């Protein structure tokens, strides 16, 4: 017996013509639907996202075909991944049938779905169908019975599940009817075990009956598939095409770098985004590519401390407004409370399987509020902005006192004409806040111990502008950045180091657009290198601690290992929090929120302090003056001051310099 099956059994080759016409028609509907959506994407502002195509395609391969990002979340992610792989196998199988039956066989008489390959083909597709079915059922149980908290549910979800389930089921029934008539009792049937199971109900029927049911099922199944194609642009099934496309168009970095506005643009009537049409086309496209998986929301520190911001909802609102009424006020739709709640921690973007960029949208809307309306989250922020304009720091301290912390330390004050190769960019908190000055002093002690002389800008250093920029004040940011760059260039330093992740990220990535081209490093990696090269010698002394990954060090710069290596060298044993590394939970100070009162929901710094306390470690270590400031308050506010003490990594290291 030949190991194959008759393609188009029962329905016959006569269906080919109507079948292809209908398929073409359904594709027509799909393309028409997608093109209609395209006009909405085109409402957005231009943005270059077609460069580095190789890299882009590689990402699509990794995140779509290997489901790399989807699989990062166990459960639903795993189910989606397995369903996806099965669905791909089924699609490949159907395509093979098409190639043989409609191309190779009629034209060249070539049949490859025979013999052992057919057996392999048969069992793989059969099992793929089964896996797909089980995963879909699992996902349906999750959505409708387990009902995860705050998972948005619309008729689209039901439609997609029912449609896909019916396609799979009718596929198996179809196979069953055919097998009942042609394969029952043969060895071949064992290579389609699931099909064989579905053949049982048809076993007792006459062949005519089997054939009649088969014909009916075939057309029904086919109609469902046509419906599936047609439904893509009009339901969330569109993510099948749009999410991979969005991954292709993703931001290739540097991670978290914001678009620099041309503020001198005489033509510009408005700055920032008030309407969707002020956003880029990619921002609008993002809205359509969202799969509503709510991973961003699950991770968002604002959402998790009862603030009104859900990154998913924000993207969905942009999507709704884009298609319903693009001229309406986006800011009013989203509300300012939502926009000001973001700490720009990137937890949302880092986990998004669709490569959606949430933060730049929020910043663009904040820019509109600040630059066009002069609006801030509160009067305290307006005061901090004014203080920065006057004094060059948001704390309103005297610029002349900026280098007071360095008195008596071996550091070159470049503002006084002293020289150094490496610039230590101190930042406002380490310069003025007595608590945080210890971090700056520790850094200098460590450098001195390693025989490295660094310089500071002294009274000429200004705030790097990060909090201002993240709060939307691009004008003040550019003013500060330009002045800093001018000062830095004048000193002739070759390299910059900062112990503040916010300064570091800003100088390394954002200042490039304004003309700073020096290498910038964070103190952690700088010191790790000194340690590895043997220049820095630390004494190991036991320390029981937990480590908080600062958002701007971790998710923005992937610096997870350097601090842990340094801690290890210092003899510390780290009890990791459940939310560590990529999963880290913001201290509340990012996104310029350090300047703002936290009026909504629970205190984020207290929430994080409790997470740290849960590890049982008595010391909470971070590598960021903002985090340390927040934890100093958060630990007291959460009544944990008896059991937990916040320290900067540099303070730990400085205590352990080998004598």
């Amino acid at each position, binding site marked *: 017996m030949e190991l194959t099956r008759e393609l188009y059994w029962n329905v016959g080759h006569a269906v080919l013509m109507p079948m292809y016409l209908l398929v073409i028609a359904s594709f027509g509907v799909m393309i028409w639907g997608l093109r209609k959506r395209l006009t909405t994407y085109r409402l957005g502002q231009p943005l270059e996202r077609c460069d580095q195509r190789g890299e882009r395609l590689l990402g699509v391969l990794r995140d779509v075909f290997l489901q790399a990002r989807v699989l990062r979340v166990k459960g639903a992610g795993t189910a989606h991944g397995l369903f996806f792989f099965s669905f791909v196998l089924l699609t490949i199988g159907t395509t093979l049938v098409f190639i043989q039956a409609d191309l190779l066989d009629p034209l060249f008489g070539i049949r490859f779905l025979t013999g052992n390959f057919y057996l392999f083909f048969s069992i793989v597709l059969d099992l793929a169908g089964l896996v797909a079915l089980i995963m879909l059922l699992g996902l349906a149980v999750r959505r409708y019975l387990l009902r995860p908290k705050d998972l948005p549910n619309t008729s689209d979800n039901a439609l997609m599940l029912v449609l896909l389930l019916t396609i799979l089921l009718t596929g198996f029934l179809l196979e069953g009817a055919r097998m009942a008539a042609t394969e029952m009792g043969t060895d071949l049937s064992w290579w389609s075990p699931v099909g064989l199971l579905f053949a049982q109900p048809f076993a007792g029927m006459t062949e005519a009956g089997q054939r009649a049911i088969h014909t009916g099922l075939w057309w029904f199944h086919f109609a469902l598939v046509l419906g599936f194609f047609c439904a893509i642009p009009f339901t969330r099934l569109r993510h099948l095409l749009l999410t991979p496309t969005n991954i292709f168009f993703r931001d290739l970095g540097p991670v978290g770098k914001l678009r620099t506005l041309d503020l001198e643009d005489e033509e510009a009537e*408005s700055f920032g985004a008030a309407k969707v049409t002020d956003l880029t086309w990619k921002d609008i496209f993002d809205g359509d590519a969202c799969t509503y998986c709510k991973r961003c929301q699950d991770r968002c520190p604002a959402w998790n401390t009862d603030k009104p911001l859900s990154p998913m909802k924000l993207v969905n609102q942009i999507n709704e407004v884009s298609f319903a009424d693009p001229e309406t006020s986006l800011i009013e739709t989203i509300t300012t409370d939502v926009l000001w709640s973001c700490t720009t921690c990137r937890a949302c973007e880092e986990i998004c399987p669709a490569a959606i960029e949430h933060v730049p949208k929020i910043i663009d809307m904040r820019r509109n509020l600040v*630059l066009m309306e002069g609006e801030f989250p509160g009067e305290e922020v307006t005061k901090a902005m004014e203080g920065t304009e*006057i004094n060059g720091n948001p704390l309103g*301290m005297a610029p002349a006192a900026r280098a007071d912390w360095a008195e008596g330390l071996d550091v070159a004050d470049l503002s006084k004409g002293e020289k150094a190769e490496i610039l230590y960019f101190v930042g406002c908190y380490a310069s003025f806040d007595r608590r945080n000055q210890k971090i700056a002093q520790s850094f200098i002690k460590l450098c001195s111990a390693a025989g490295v002389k660094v310089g500071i800008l002294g009274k000429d250093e200004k705030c790097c502008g990060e909090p201002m920029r993240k709060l939307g004040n691009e004008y003040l940011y550019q003013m500060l950045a330009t002045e800093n760059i001018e000062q830095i260039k004048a000193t002739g330093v070759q390299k910059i180091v900062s112990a503040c992740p916010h300064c570091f990220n800003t100088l390394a990535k954002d200042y490039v657009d304004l003309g700073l081209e020096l290498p910038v490093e964070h103190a952690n990696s700088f010191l790790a290198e000194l340690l590895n090269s043997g220049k820095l010698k630390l004494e190991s002394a036991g320390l029981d601690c937990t480590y908080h990954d600062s958002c701007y060090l971790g998710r923005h710069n992937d610096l997870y290992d350097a601090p842990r290596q340094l801690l290890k060298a210092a003899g510390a044993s780290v009890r990791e929090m459940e939310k560590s590394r990529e999963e880290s939970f913001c201290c509340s100070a990012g996104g310029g929120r350090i300047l703002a009162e936290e009026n909504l929901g629970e205190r984020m710094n207290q929430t994080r302090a409790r997470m740290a306390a849960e590890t049982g470690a008595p010391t909470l270590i971070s590598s960021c003056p903002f985090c340390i400031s927040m934890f100093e308050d958060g630990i007291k506010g959460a009544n944990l001051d008896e059991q937990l003490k916040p320290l900067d990594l540099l303070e730990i290291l400085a205590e352990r310099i080998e004598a």
Partner: protein
Amino acid sequence: MNILVCIKQVPDMESRFKIAASGTWFEESDLAWRINEYDEFAVEQAVQLKEQLGDSDLTVLTIGPARVKEALKKSLAMGCDRALHVVDDAAHEKDPFQIASTIAAFAKEKSFDVIFTGMQSQDRGSGQVGVLVGELLNIPALTTAVEFACEDGAVTVRRELEGGLKAVVKAQTPALVTCQLGLNTPRYPTLPNIMKAKKKELLEVPVNDLLNEESRLTALSLTYPEKKGSALILEGEISDLVDKVIGILKEKTAVLAK
């Protein structure tokens, strides 16, 4: 309506002051400069009045060296229509009477309907200039306003008195109002307004064109108060500490005197 607002640029009070070689004023290097806080309220109120009335012209005036242009630019960005810079490199040597005379000499020609000034400056705090300008122009001067309204050619202000008490006073225009902290919330200039401000009129007049009065006050010296520095640390028995603290409060503060 023709409106004038008079402002002063002062060092930020957080600045580290160094006494200049002259011994009568401070060195200007390393200072951060700002619009006198009280004057910011004045500018805001003037802009609000202009917005309320529509057809108005708002001039902002200041006296000082080149650096004061920054203060004028910010006022223009907040909404003033034109600026006058009375150039005087030795403005810090002028007494309140001379400053007021300079302003009055300019204002006399212009027939302003409402003039706003801060209630006092943060650096000198004499609280005289506004009232003197009003008197020199022979128009009513309403001081220490924490609320302001202008209707039918009359201005009504709530004056802040001691102990939370307020007095309602009214005068026909032309009138002068001195502004107290809390009168309003000074706006943060928007970017388009900052850009527009760059194109607005900013005239310069040498101070000697307006001023021909002699100083009525002689500055003798500028000194640091007794060193504040780090705190006086008190340790010991609670009851002793309480007595010591009460003694200190009586001696160093006015709060227990009453």
